[in-house]
């Protein structure tokens, strides 16, 4: 990126010329500055120049405000991507049949979505056969089964049984909920591959599963 690029962007702001501003940004991008770095490398220094020009009286209040409007118009060109890139990992998540405790599921699903995973939220009160149906429909290889009641947690093994009987032995099942936190043996007996202890744990476990699969695919 040319050294005077921030100055050029600043001038485009002050001249109220969004096209020129976008052109400066595109030139910086073409010179190899990544989207993640455009903001720091280009936008922030030009905003510093703008602030300095206003403070010194070089531009008046009206020009400052108009320049800020142009800056607003081009912000989306320089802002780092707010959503994570699509990982391609499909995750099925749902609460067990007769279980309507959705908070843990909702929070984990939102976190996984934000991390770029393709989350299919089956909702609450999901029968084991519905998990199987959706696995077959989507080719998902990762299922998160949520259960907050001891009675429904004990039934989580039926999801594994259903998948195994249909030949889906490679599907990774993660379980989530208070009963599994309290008694990890319950997860083992349900044939789960891991226990999700909340959103951060879901992110970690799903990333690990995705990495394992990617590693196996490369090998």
């Amino acid at each position, binding site marked *: 990126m040319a050294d005077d690029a921030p100055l050029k962007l600043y001038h485009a702001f002050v001249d109220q010329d969004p096209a020129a501003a976008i052109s400066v940004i595109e030139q910086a991008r073409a010179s190899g500055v990544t989207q993640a770095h455009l903001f720091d490398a280009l936008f922030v220094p030009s905003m510093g120049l703008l602030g300095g020009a206003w*403070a010194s009286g070089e531009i008046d209040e009206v020009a400052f405000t108009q320049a800020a409007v142009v800056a607003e118009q081009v912000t989306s060109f320089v*802002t*780092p991507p707010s959503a994570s890139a699509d990982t391609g990992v499909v995750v099925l998540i749902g609460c067990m049949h007769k279980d309507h405790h959705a*908070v843990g599921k*909702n*929070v984990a699903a*939102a976190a996984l979505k934000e991390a770029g995973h393709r989350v299919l939220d089956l909702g609450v009160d999901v029968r084991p056969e519905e998990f199987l149906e959706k696995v077959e429909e989507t080719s998902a290889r990762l299922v998160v089964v949520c259960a907050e009641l001891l009675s429904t947690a004990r039934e989580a093994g039926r999801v594994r049984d259903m998948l195994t009987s249909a030949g889906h032995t490679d599907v990774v099942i993660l379980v989530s909920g208070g009963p599994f936190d309290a008694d990890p043996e319950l997860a083992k007996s349900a044939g789960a591959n891991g226990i999700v*202890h909340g959103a951060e744990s879901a992110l970690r476990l799903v990333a690990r599963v995705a990495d394992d699969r990617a590693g196996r695919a490369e090998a």
Partner: protein
Amino acid sequence: MSADRSQQVALAEGLARQEQVGPAVEACYAALRLDASQPHAHALLAELMLAGDFYDEAIAAATRAIELDPDCAPAYLALGLAYDRRGGMWDQSILVWHELAEVVPDLVTAHVQLGEAFSLAAFDEEAIESWRRALELDPAEARAMYNLAVAALKREGVPTALPGFRKAGELDPSQDELFFDLADIGPLPRKLPDPAKVADDRDSRLHAAGVLARAEDYFGAAELVRAQLDASPDDADALALSAYMYLKQEAGNEAMACAVRAVMVDRTSVTGMYALGVAYAKRPGLNRHAARVFSALAAAVPEHPMPHVLLAESMMGLQRYSQAKAAYRHAVELDPACVRARFGLAAVLLTENRHAEAAWEIRRAAYYDTRRQGLFWELYDEYVEGGE
């Protein structure tokens, strides 16, 4: 009704206002031995028992006050708080807050508390309705906004809830207090400075501008800041104050320009860091930038809880929930009455499926918030003066 205060109750009141709980309780009992039919004395006793964490005794005293006078608003407040803090009595709690909202319909806190009681009893729709009612009565009611953010978190996760937490934080006076603490601007004086009469030196100008900004007289403040920048365009404090005022007027880019300039001029400017961090935090996609700035601010003023809260919120945006929790916990350690940190901590605990602990943090926030507002005394004074 208007209640006459006996000398003994007045003594108990005086002691209670000085937070001398033990002697105040003794004075209350003495007053009640003389005349057990004084509802305000029972209400006062309930408040004192609550302060000492004797919930059953508080419930008994408040209930007696209400039996003696069903319009005894301070007793409803004490009773509701006692039920909430005792836990497991949500049905009773809902009834009490509902009653208080009827006795004092424009009491915003009653609606906020009613919502929290509904939420704990799993009546989510009713809870949201109560918080919305509180916001109708007072659009700046931060605790209702925090609760709505927590409700959004439960339904749609952190990404949807986080803007709500930040919005609530802006309503919460503690964030502005941080800026003015950093700028060394104390509480508002009785008489605001006249910009035309401020002495012609840097410190006088900036102090007066800070006072006017605190009083939300942004025209007066801007005039003084302009004078200072005309004299010294590279004054980081003046730039940071400008950035703060632009932020308050929702002019995000102007704020960012001034804040960036302030930090470029002086990398140690804490007011500049604050304004820059807030400007970044307001924009989607800049959580990493906000976290970097708030981290520097927290390191620069480690004893202040609010930079840790702001850092925690940015960490939430980055899905670094453990780090967010550590920052929130640190803020709560620094100031157990920090409502924003308590709600934030509750949010992180919800991401860990730790619902009971989250509810506890929200209850503590309620306790400190009502104390901060001096709500009991407000209701009590209105009641004994007969002006309810």
